[in-house]
């Protein structure tokens, strides 16, 4: 099966089938898997007729988001391992889990999305049709997340969103068959905005570096909207394509703009490169830097340029002092992979743990039942305290963590990059569920 899939995939973004012997799953007769005898929909019940359930994972393993994609993948793999063995941490989040989900062992396939929507959709379409994937996941690029939202709704297969910061993902492009654990760009702006106003004052001039796709534009707009309430103005917004090879032209515009603060919305290697070059061009000596949607590993990869820089993030490992589940996760992750997890891995792990919980609570893999369980909006555990999913837009309401880059002399170890400034509860940060025009669509 593995070799067969690889042979049939000719581009560099090969499909890495990490499971074996699953082809039989697609040949099994369609029959109800459970006594609840629900009508067939999407991959249900065909995908869970045997002793396994398949998850399709698409993450960027090449391109500008590759580092973050690999980290995200590790979070997924650890979650699947924990779910299959009935690990103690999973049981804290999903008490009804014994081994696997509803007794089915989880299998998975991985495809490289390269942060390109078409690549991700093609790969997931294959996972759905050939492997009868019962759930799909992916993201890192919100453009991919939005595309997979549409695929999930069309195919009636649940999409548990990976990394995605766009307001569109659970906003105007939301779907009944999609759920998201990490927060809106709007939420990040609402959390970090007051900190910036407190730190830098009112009426400041901001320059933006914005990646040219849904995530970039929505996060920048959210930041602009929030900061405008404190009299901030935008003196320049430099929109760059994903994976720009050089930011010198953009940064010259920023350097000559008279801005007080540079708000770098770029992500992945784009953020690393643009920040490094901002330093090279003296921009960081002229103005303060803020990263409103933190990029995993940016502190490490920029060689310490995040010192003194504020960022909003889903997770930083030092919150383990306050959250016992975070400590358990950090220890398990570090034991397996040899480094402290950042928020991509955390988001991946929690998303799967929540999905396992919803299936167990529903007592079925039947997508409408699982979705309705999410929509109960019950308070459930996560690695950052209790959270819940909003029934109206399938967005998880969860805290935002504001961090500030530590000076080198204050770092206790080589991964102690940030101080946690504040953990801002999610409820007060969220706009109304219909503010971005979300209409979920049908169950069937």
């Amino acid at each position: 099966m593995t070799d067969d899939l690889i042979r049939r995939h000719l581009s560099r973004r090969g499909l890495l089938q990490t499971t074996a012997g699953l082809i039989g799953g697609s040949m099994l007769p369609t029959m109800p898997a459970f006594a609840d005898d629900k009508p067939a929909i999407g991959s249900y019940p065909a995908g869970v007729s045997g002793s396994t359930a398949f998850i399709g994972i698409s993450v960027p393993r090449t391109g500008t988001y590759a580092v973050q994609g690999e980290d995200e993948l590790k979070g997924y793999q650890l979650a699947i391992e924990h779910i299959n063995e009935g690990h103690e941490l999973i049981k804290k989040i999903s008490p009804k889990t014994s081994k696997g989900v509803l007794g089915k062992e989880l299998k998975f396939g991985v495809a490289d999305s390269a942060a390109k929507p078409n690549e991700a959709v093609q790969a997931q379409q294959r996972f759905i049709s050939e492997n009868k994937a019962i759930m799909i996941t992916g993201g890192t690029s919100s453009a991919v997340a939005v595309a997979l939202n549409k695929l999930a709704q069309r195919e009636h297969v649940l999409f548990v969103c990976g990394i995605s910061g766009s307001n569109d993902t659970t906003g105007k492009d939301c779907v009944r068959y999609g759920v998201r654990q990490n927060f809106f760009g709007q939420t990040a702006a609402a959390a970090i905005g007051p900190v910036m106003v407190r730190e830098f004052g009112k009426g400041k001039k901001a320059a933006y570096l914005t990646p040219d796709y849904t995530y970039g534009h929505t996060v920048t707009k959210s930041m602009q909207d929030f900061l405008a309430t404190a009299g901030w103005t935008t003196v320049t917004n430099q929109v760059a394509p994903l994976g720009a090879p050089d930011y010198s032209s953009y940064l010259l515009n920023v350097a000559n703009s008279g801005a007080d603060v540079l708000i770098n919305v770029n992500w992945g290697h784009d953020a690393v490169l643009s920040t490094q070059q901002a330093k090279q061009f003296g921009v960081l000596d002229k103005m303060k830097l803020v990263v409103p949607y933190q990029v995993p590993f940016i502190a490490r990869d920029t060689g310490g340029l995040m010192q003194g820089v504020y960022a909003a993030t889903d997770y930083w490992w030092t919150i383990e002092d306050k959250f016992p589940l975070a400590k358990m996760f950090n220890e398990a992750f570090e034991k397996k992979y040899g480094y402290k997890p950042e928020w991509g891995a955390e988001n991946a792990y929690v998303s799967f743990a929540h999905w396992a919980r919803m299936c167990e609570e529903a007592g079925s893999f039947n997508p409408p039942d699982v979705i309705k369980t999410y929509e109960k909006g019950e308070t459930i555990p996560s690695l950052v305290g209790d959270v819940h999913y909003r029934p109206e837009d399938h967005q998880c309401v969860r805290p935002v963590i504001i961090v500030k880059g530590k000076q080198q002399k204050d770092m206790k170890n080589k991964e102690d990059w940030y101080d946690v400034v504040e953990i801002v509860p999610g409820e007060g940060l969220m706009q109304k569920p219909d503010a971005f025009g979300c209409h979920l669509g049908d169950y069937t």
Partner: protein
Amino acid sequence: MISWPNLVSQLFNGLALGALLALISSGLTIIYGTLGVLNLAHGAMFMIGGYAGFVTYQYTESFILAVIAGSLFVMLLGVAMERVIIRHFYHRPHEDQLLVTFGLGICFVELVRLIFSSQSQIVPPPALFQGITNLGFMFYPTYRLAVVGIVAVALGALFIVLYRTRLGMIVRAGIEDSVMVDSLGINVYRVFMIVFGIGAMAAGFAGIVNAPVVSLTPGIGDDILVQTFVVVVIGGVGSFPGAILGGLIAGEIISVTSMFNPGYAYVMLFAAMTLVLVVRPHGLLGVQGRE
């Protein structure tokens, strides 16, 4: 309204960007001009030059050694490529050449990813060129300034090799008419090997010289490859002076357009290329060359 300090800054930045593009493109163009092979692995070779230099720097902490190692490693890689694979494709259709070099490029990129992961790697500029220089009208990274000089010297060296040596004369004759060169008793295939090595070395040299500016990732050659082809087309396929002129024009187009709207930089670049092709189908300084 045009901000003059910004315009001057961008014009200057265009010169720096253009110089680098000129160097990479010159390698591509002499390979194509002489061998008739469009080397789609050229971007990957640019990337490998950076990584070979990075590894050398890790062990020696000498930037000069890194530059030498990056250049030589890619030159040897180019020679090996030509001997083992490319020479079998001289008389095959262009699409076969494109496919084989494209495939090699992919293999190189994935091999580097396998060894170094996707994490970006940093080669710091030499101590002499660290920091920022005040040019009076603007502040500019010292190393980028140095790159203009380094590239100018490298292009000068290439020029001397191509226009002031016997080898260069043979190479240029090969560009014009390789069959005649062969008829005159010169081992044209050995010349081809040397040319491929020189072209590859230009890419490798550019890769390591560029490394402190951008930080290295396995995909770094992908975007450069596209720009390089545009440069070659604008300047004239197979023309060494054309590569330099095309590089400078491309650098200025990208930079000046970026002043108004960076999103249109590449649109303008391709628009300029189209315009050149309409007015001068063989490029600004192109020759008929091989067909």
